[in-house]
């Protein structure tokens, strides 16, 4: 999340000679990325800073100032800390608030204070100017002060008009589905179940906790008594509610990242102090402070050895200690106490290592390449084969495509896995075949050329009961403008290219618009690849070659049947090639070789006779005379 931090607001805490550009660079390299420096209309620099989700403590001027206090002196800049006094006010047991909390975990800390004699007017200029610099519209002194503290200390707070809380009673609970509340922005919101809300003595919802106050209890120009309200809510519940309502407020964004548990009461007194000064307010109640969780300080071991190991260089103990102290960690023996504002974020020695090394400076660490042992197994065969296949197809004029893993229901095929929370209909079902999407690619590119050939090598997704879906790699090929046998030839040659001896069967689908498509199981292809090729001794005898033309009789008959019969006739038949077909006249080229002695024409004649004999007997195929 990005925040805006005005340079001169920072000076309330750290007086420094570092220029804005120095501060931006220091923060970027050691803490948080400063995306840019903006200037306000008055020419004041404002940092736009990206705060990582683990650092809710830094979503405030104070949080950034704390980093700078520790960081700037290390970089040679002056940085003097302006300590802010804790402004504990008077407690008066006059006005009451009846608080009922339905479930303790909803609100780990609940604090409030009632103020009276309030004069609603405009805020002083410095507050208005600063709020404007961080993009917050000024409204009136009371509301502005609550917002001001949120940006200043990172503690969101709310002010109710005390007199609008019926029965001076608050019931903090989770919403029931369908309850309605009109928030301060005037929008009526229908609530899902489980959102944290407050109900008053009349049963009205008066707050959408941690997100935005309700219209019916807002502070307006007639307000005389104010309930100042400062809480720590369950961060997960706030995020879920805020997301579900589509209402991401500055308050919610801070609550959901965690609040400094020990900062709650000082922030409340700071706000009360400002209200006394700028709204003439006076304390009118006791401090309400309900602790619903046990909060115990957290200690973490400082592992100097680990720090050096992780850094890859030696950082002296003295420097480690200095850095940690600067960031607010207090030493007790080998351990440090984690500051309250870092409570959710620092747990392990490794977390401390990060603190130390980022302040030491990642740019100061040397660049080293790995030494030591190498992995024992590589298993790179399949990846190598992929590249061989892709290059082969590329050289046959194919375009390699990458299509989405998921598609619409029609293209995905039956039994496809469904995405529970799709973004679009076109990305809703996991494909069970590559071919429909590849065919679609051709249809989309029809104007490109008369002949289009595409392929993709990727997974398909097959549901399995009670198991991870099978995600086998498939090779899909789709062509247009290519003859059937030409396409078939490519797939046969592809198999030979990767050293498959007994070609796998495949099924060419003839689709509309003359598209031809094949899908091969790539993992199966990889399995039947010959690992080592057995060498055939070279033969010094000559072979005899001849062409024979046969008549294919009517009836069901296939080329492989003919091929099989011929090849099985005699082991001296070295090879058989298809030469051509005219009408039903099939011409074959046959090569004879005897590896033991020179074959004679008399011998080939005998073999030939047997071929004729077998073909006629088994298939009714005769020689064309």
């Amino acid at each position, binding site marked *: 999340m990005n925040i805006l931090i005005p340079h001169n607001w920072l000076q309330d805490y750290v007086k420094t000679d570092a220029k804005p550009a120095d501060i931006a660079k220091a923060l970027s*390299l*050691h803490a948080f*990325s400063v995306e*840019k420096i903006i200037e306000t209309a008055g020419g004041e620099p404002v940092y736009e800073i990206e705060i*990582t*989700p683990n*650092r809710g403590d830094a979503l405030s001027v104070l949080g950034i100032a704390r980093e700078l206090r520790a960081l700037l002196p290390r970089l040679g800049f002056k940085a003097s800390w302006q300590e802010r006094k804790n402004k504990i006010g008077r407690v008066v047991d006059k006005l009451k608030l009846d608080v009922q909390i339905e479930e303790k975990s909803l609100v780990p800390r609940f604090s409030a204070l009632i103020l009276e004699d309030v004069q609603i007017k405009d805020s002083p200029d410095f507050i208005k100017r600063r709020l404007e610099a961080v993009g917050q519209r000024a409204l009136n002194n009371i509301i502005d002060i609550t917002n001001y503290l949120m940006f200043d200390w990172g503690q969101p707070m709310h002010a109710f008009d005390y007199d609008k809380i019926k029965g001076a009673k608050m019931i903090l609970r989770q919403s029931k589905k369908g309850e309605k509340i009109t928030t301060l922005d005037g929008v009526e919101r229908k609530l899902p179940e489980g959102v944290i809300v407050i109900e008053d003595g009349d049963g009205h919802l008066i707050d959408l906790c941690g997100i935005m106050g309700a219209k019916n209890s807002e502070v307006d120009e007639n307000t005389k008594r104010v309930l100042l309200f400062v809480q720590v809510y369950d961060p*997960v519940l706030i*995020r879920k509610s805020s997301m579900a309502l589509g209402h991401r407020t500055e308050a919610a964004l801070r609550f959901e990242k965690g609040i400094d548990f020990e900062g709650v009461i000082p922030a409340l007194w700071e706000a009360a102090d400002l209200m006394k000064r700028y709204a003439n307010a006076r304390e009118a109640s006791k401090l309400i402070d309900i602790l619903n969780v046990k909060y115990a300080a957290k200690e973490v071991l400082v592992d100097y050895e680990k720090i050096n*190991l*992780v*850094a890859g260089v030696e950082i002296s103990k003295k420097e480690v200690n200095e850095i940690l102290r600067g960031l607010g960690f207090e030493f007790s023996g080998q351990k440090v106490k984690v500051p309250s504002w870092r409570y959710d974020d620092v747990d392990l020695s*490794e977390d401390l290592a*990060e603190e130390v*090394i*980022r302040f030491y400076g*990642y*740019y100061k*660490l*040397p*660049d*080293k*390449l*790995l030494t*030591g042992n*190498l*992995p*024992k197994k590589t*298993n*790179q065969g399949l*990846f190598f084969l992929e*590249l061989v296949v892709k290059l082969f*197809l590329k050289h*046959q*004029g194919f*375009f*390699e*495509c*990458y*299509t*989405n*893993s*998921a598609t619409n229901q029609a293209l995905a095929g039956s039994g496809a*896995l*469904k*995405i*529970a*929370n799709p*973004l*679009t209909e076109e990305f809703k079902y*996991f494909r069970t075949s590559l071919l429909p999407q590849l065919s679609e*690619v051709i249809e*989309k590119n029809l104007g490109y050329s008369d002949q289009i*050939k*595409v392929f993709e090598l*990727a*997974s398909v*997704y097959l549901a399995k009961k009670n198991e*991870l879906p099978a*995600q086998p790699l498939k090779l899909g090929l789709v062509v247009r403008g290519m003859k059937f046998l030409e396409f078939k030839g490519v797939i046969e040659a592809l198999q030979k290219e990767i050293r498959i001896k007994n070609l796998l069967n495949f099924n060419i689908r003839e689709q509309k618009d003359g598209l031809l498509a094949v899908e091969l199981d790539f993992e199966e292809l990889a399995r039947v690849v010959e690992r080592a090729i057995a060498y055939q001794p070279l033969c010094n005898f000559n072979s005899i070659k001849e062409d024979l033309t046969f008549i294919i009789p009517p009836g069901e008959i296939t080329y492989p049947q003919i091929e099989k019969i011929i090849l099985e006739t005699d082991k001296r038949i070295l090879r058989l090639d298809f030469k051509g077909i005219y009408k039903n006249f099939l011409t074959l080229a046959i090569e004879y070789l005897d590896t033991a002695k020179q074959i004679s024409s008399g011998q080939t004649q005998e073999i030939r006779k047997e071929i004729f004999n077998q073909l006629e007997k088994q298939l009714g195929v005769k020689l064309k005379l």
Partner: protein
Amino acid sequence: MDLGELKNLISEFKSDAKRLSSVADFEELRLKYAGKKGKIAQLFDVFAKLKAEEKKEFGKKINELKNEIELELVDLQEKFLNKKVESPLDKFLKTLPGQKIEAGHLHIITQAIRDITEIFKPLGFVRTRYPEIDFEWFAFEALNIPSTHPARDEWETFFVDAPPDKKYGRLVITPHTSNGQIHEMLKNELPIRMLGISRCGRRQEDISHLQTFFQFEGLAVDKGISISHLKGTLDYFAKNFFGPGREIRLRPYDFRFTEPSFEVDINCALCLGKGCKLCKGGWVELGGAGMVHPNVLKYGGIDPATYTGFAFGWGVERTYMMKSGTKIDDIRHMFGNDLRFLEQF
């Protein structure tokens, strides 16, 4: 000399030519007919003395005869000297473009993956691929991402509409390749130097995001691995992938599965880090990296007291687009499969 004699001359030449048996014979024949004082030259002498009205027909015939004999001589010369003599047309023909071989194209993602793999190979990184649809446990839990983390929300990550597994949770479309870290660690073979490249899916699509995309994930686990090794490895990658003069820097960041975590920047291709209009500040973001979180090592069955490791996981398409010179302005071209786009690579 008249036209009849010209006819005799050609048949005389042909019968002479039949009798050739050596290179010397050929040379003699050539001189006899086409030499400076040979029969053709003599014909031109005769021609010069003719009257204008006779010249037209006679001249035409002589030229025909001359061409015929010269062509025959070329053939004979090729035969006897075994040397090809090229005519001007022959020479022109060779200047025509070569016969086109259908090129075909590897997709830019394949090319990027090949480049990346080749760069990491000499460092001993072994390529792996782990499931794109995996159980939540591998994609989140074991990566130290608790169920309350925003990455596990329905609006960030795709889930499969299927009953959850008792042990491993729901089926999820992995939003990163980091599930591969856990699978690799659980193989129980140390040391690890893995380059996992797989498809992932995220619930967003715009000019710089795709619902399907590729990541490459580097993981090294061994004794004594430090941030310095990560820096060295990424710097090596940057220089080899993007070019000499390119450098990387690490900035603090936060990821659940690494500690410390970094955002990796590379100096701008144009200004090399000085700062210019393109990059604003000299550096551009490349991706995330970090030291493997001790909890992740534990989930992978590795003792974090003995072993450390580093990891990084970056988008293949995005990283390739950042290579200087590609100028691809919209990542959606990558899965658009417009052949006019694909043919450019």
